[in-house]
Structures are given as structure tokens and as C-alpha cells.
């Protein structure tokens, strides 16, 4: 059903050697449904009005996984997909999305995934999204993900986004609206190299009492790549928010981080930190005293930083 290239991409973006044995699955390949499996608690349906799927997770579903990887292996393919998640009260699920592009041609290929999450009361969701690109052609591999999250009272979402290799151009937008006592943790990891461009913009609205968010962005910009971060958090109730952008810059890369925090309530406590700098020379020297070459030391430091 899947060829070798598709399987390898699946491995990169979803840690899947093949179709997973359990849990709900929807694999999309070159704009078409390649495989789908529902479970008793998780129902995936194709949308009728536009491209994409609705994923319904029943209330109080416990410890189930949903895999919805996307694979693009054709050049000049421009995919736009709308995926809507309806997560019932008290459900606990891990959702692994991710998109891999293999572009051997000379035309650009792109995938724009627009994901909307309606997270019910006290539901707990871990959402992992990995992006990966490969292929020798001159065509660009472009990914523009949008993630929109609505968290009801007591809901908790951990959003992990990873883009380590091969994506030439990416514009990420994340928006989250948090109700009372809801919690959002965002862990963003990004590595750009060559002439790649990556942009990540985020709006988090802490609207409910005791809503909390922690945004941690770690990135490495190598060669001539360019990164832009624009995380914004708005506190509209007694709430807490912490945004930390941390970037390692190398070669002739450029990184710009513009965190913005807005308090509209006297009991809103928001903090931001942003740091951009090269690898500390002392770190490389220390690892060299342990027997690593300068290159190996650099690799170890980046590996740890992005883990």
C-alpha cells in the first residue's frame, strides 16, 4: 500500500515503521486518503464541503492514540487540508500529526494543514506535529501549518512541534483560547539550514480564571537561514503565562524574536524571555577535553539543545 519513500517519510514524521497496529489512523498521501481506521471511541470522517477530516473523540476515552500523517511525494502538488478535532469531556489522547514532503522535481510542493481543536472539559491532549522534507530537486518544500485550539474549563493541551530537516519555507500560526483553569504547554523545536526560512507566530488568549500557559521555543539557525518568532500572550483574567524563546545562531543566519505580552487584568502574571546567541565557546572546549572533536562537540550541543 505504501512504497519505500512513503514508508521512510512516515518513519520521520510519525515514528511509524508502517501502519500502527492499534489506535485510530488516517494516512493521507498526495492529496488522497491512503488508509483509515476508526476505533470504538475515535471516529474519523472525511469532510463533504472541503478537503480534510473530522475527528470525533468520545468523552472519557482513555489513553488512545490517533495518527494522522500526511505524505507528499509529487512535485508541484499544493495541498490544503482542514482537520477538525472534537475531543469529548475527560478524554485523554495523544494525537500524532506530521507532514513529510519528498520533492525530487523542480516545482515547489506544499502542504497547508489547518487544524482546529475543540477540547472539552478536563480533557487531556498531547498533540505532536513533525515536519520533514527531502528530495534532490530544486523545487521547494513548503509547509504552512495553522493550529487553532479552544480549551474548555480544566482542559489541558501539550503541543509539541518539531521541524528539524529539509523544509525550505514555513509559516506557522498557532492560536489558543483558554477557559477557566485550562492549561497549554507549547514546545517548539526548529532547525533551519541552507537558505531556509521559518516563521512562527502565536496568539494565546488566557481568558478564564487560573488559565496557564508555558511556551518554550528552542531553535537553531544555521548557514544563511532566517527565523522569525512572534509569540503573543494576552491575559484577560487571573492567569499565568511564560514565554521563552531560545535560539542558537550559526554561520550567517539571522534570527528575530519579538515576544509580546499583554495584561488586561490586575491578577494576570505574564513573563517573557528571549535569548539569541552562538554556542558558548567554553561548551565546545569542555567537550573537547572529553575527547570530542570540535565538530562532534557542536553536534552534541545542538542535539541536547533540540531534544
Amino acid at each position, binding site marked *: 500500500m505504501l512504497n519505500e519513500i512513503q514508508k521512510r517519510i512516515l518513519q520521520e514524521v510519525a515514528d511509524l515503521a508502517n501502519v500502527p497496529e492499534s489506535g485510530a489512523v488516517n494516512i493521507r498521501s498526495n492529496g488522497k486518503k491512503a488508509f483509515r481506521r476508526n476505533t470504538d471511541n475515535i471516529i474519523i470522517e472525511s469532510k463533504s464541503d472541503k478537503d480534510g477530516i473530522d475527528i470525533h473523540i468520545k468523552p472519557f476515552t482513555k489513553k488512545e492514540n490517533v495518527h494522522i500523517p500526511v505524505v507528499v511525494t509529487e512535485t508541484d502538488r499544493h495541498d490544503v487540508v482542514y482537520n477538525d478535532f472534537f475531543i469529548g469531556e475527560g478524554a485523554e489522547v495523544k494525537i500524532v500529526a506530521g507532514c513529510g514532503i519528498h520533492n525530487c522535481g523542480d516545482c515547489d510542493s506544499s502542504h497547508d494543514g489547518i487544524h482546529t481543536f475543540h477540547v472539552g472539559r478536563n480533557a487531556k491532549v498531547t498533540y505532536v506535529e513533525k515536519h520533514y522534507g527531502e528530495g534532490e530537486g530544486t523545487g521547494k518544500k513548503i509547509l504552512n501549518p495553522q493550529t487553532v485550539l479552544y480549551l474548555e474549563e480544566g482542559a489541558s493541551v501539550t503541543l509539541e512541534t518539531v521541524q528539524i530537516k529539509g523544509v525550505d519555507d514555513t509559516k506557522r500560526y498557532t492560536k489558543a483560547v483558554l477557559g477557566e483553569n485550562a492549561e497549554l504547554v507549547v514546545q517548539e523545536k526548529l532547525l533551519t539550514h541552507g537558505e531556509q526560512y521559518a516563521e512562527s507566530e502565536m496568539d494565546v488568549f488566557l481568558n478564564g480564571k487560573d488559565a496557564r500557559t508555558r511556551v518554550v521555543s*528552542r531553535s537553531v539557525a544555521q548557514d544563511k537561514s532566517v527565523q522569525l518568532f512572534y509569540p503573543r500572550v494576552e491575559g484577560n483574567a487571573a492567569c499565568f503565562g511564560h514565554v521563552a524563546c531560545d535560539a542558537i545562531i550559526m554561520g550567517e543566519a539571522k534570527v528575530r524574536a519579538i515576544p509580546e505580552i499583554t495584561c488586561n487584568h490586575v491578577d494576570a502574571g505574564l513573563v517573557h524571555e528571549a535569548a539569541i546567541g552562538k554556542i558558548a565557546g567554553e561548551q565546545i572546549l569542555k567537550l573537547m*577535553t572529553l575527547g570530542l572533536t570540535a565538530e562532534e562537540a557542536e553536534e552534541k550541543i545542538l542535539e541536547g539543545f533540540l531534544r
Partner: protein
Amino acid sequence: MLQLKDLTLTVEGENGPHNILNDVSLTVEDKKFIVITGPNGGGKTTLAKVIMGLATPTAGQILWNGEDVTDLDIAQRAKKGISYGFQQPPRFKGMKVRDLLQIAAGRKLNHAEACSYLTKVGLCARDYVDRDVDTSLSGGEVKRIEIATVLAKDADLMIFDEPEAGIDLWSFAKLTETFRELHDRQEKTIIIISHQERIIKLADEIVLIAGGQIQHKGPAGDMYDKIMAQVVAGCNKLV
């Protein structure tokens, strides 16, 4: 055997050239345990860095086991069995204590092995192996992890730069015990830079460095009393 021959390190100061190290020659026999002491700014750390390859001498030679290593880089010297624990160790965002110990040991370490190195420096290992070596660790903790990496590397020559600095009384007792064991086992060549009487007294030989020069060296017993007498007299040169 470690042989330092006429090592000089000159920097350009405000008032012209200045020798941080001035014609330092020293031979350390295999499996000996020596302590280098002396006033702040005397050149101890610089000498250690020159041996490790972290600083480049303006003149002179470093021989290790008869081989001239003066032109080798840090990693090459490390592979030949030279190691150094920093006076002020760096921190690493995202690197775990266990990662650092594994890099030092050059292999995967199981939980018990990783813990054993931490126990030797007085850290309750269980609480530390999976922590990041970042700013969340205290100064004394980072310092002890640094020492543990040198122990894990298990090189033939171990240089420790003020291992006692910033370390509490309890951990210091454990650390002294570890150094005493290293001394008694006589398997490694140990150079410790220290200002601490209890460490100085472990030494087979004490080397006093001040003003970029070796002012004196000799067996621990009589040297320590001589140094103290000079300190009391308000002078850091032994005559």
C-alpha cells in the same frame, strides 16, 4: 611521565608584554599525586590549560609519555590520556548529567555506573543523573558534576582545578576521601590545584606557583609548614 620544559606564556598588557607563565619547567613522574598551590593570579590555571591545550604557550614544550604534544589540539591530547576539570565549568542547556558522563566515559553508562561517579563527589546520584546541566543547578552542584566527568573519563593524567571551590563541608569530606583513594590506588597521575590544607596534605609533592613561576617544590610534609610560615610573614615567595 609529564614533562614541562621552559613554558612561557606572554600576553600584551597595558604596560607592554607580560608573562603569565615565565619559564616553567616541571617533571611529574607516573602515578604521582602532586598539588599545585599559590596566590590568586599566580598562573596555576593557565599552566593547567597549557597542559590540556586550552591555552597556547608562547615558548616551551610539553612532553607526555615522551611524546611532544605541544602542537596537538585539545581532543587529541584528551585521546592520549590527558584530562582537566575546569575551575569554572560551563553549563549546557538540554544536556543531561548522564549525557555528559557518557561522553566522558566514551560509552553508554547504565544507571548504576552513572550514579557511582556522582556518589564519589558527594551528590545523591538518583536526584541528579537525569537533570540538565544548566542554570537550574547550583554552583557547587555544577562543580561536583565537573569533577565527576573527569573521574568518568578515567584518563592517565587527571588535572583538577580547585575542586574544593564552592563545595560544602559534607561534600568536601566525600571528595577528600575520593582523592585519598586515587592517591592510595596509585594508578593515575594526579595534579590538583588547591588552596585546601586537607588536599595539600595528600600530596606526594607540592609545587608553589606565584608570579608565573615555580617558586618552590618539595615533599608535602615540610613544604606546607614553610608555606604557612611565609603566609604568616605576609610574603608569598619561599626563599
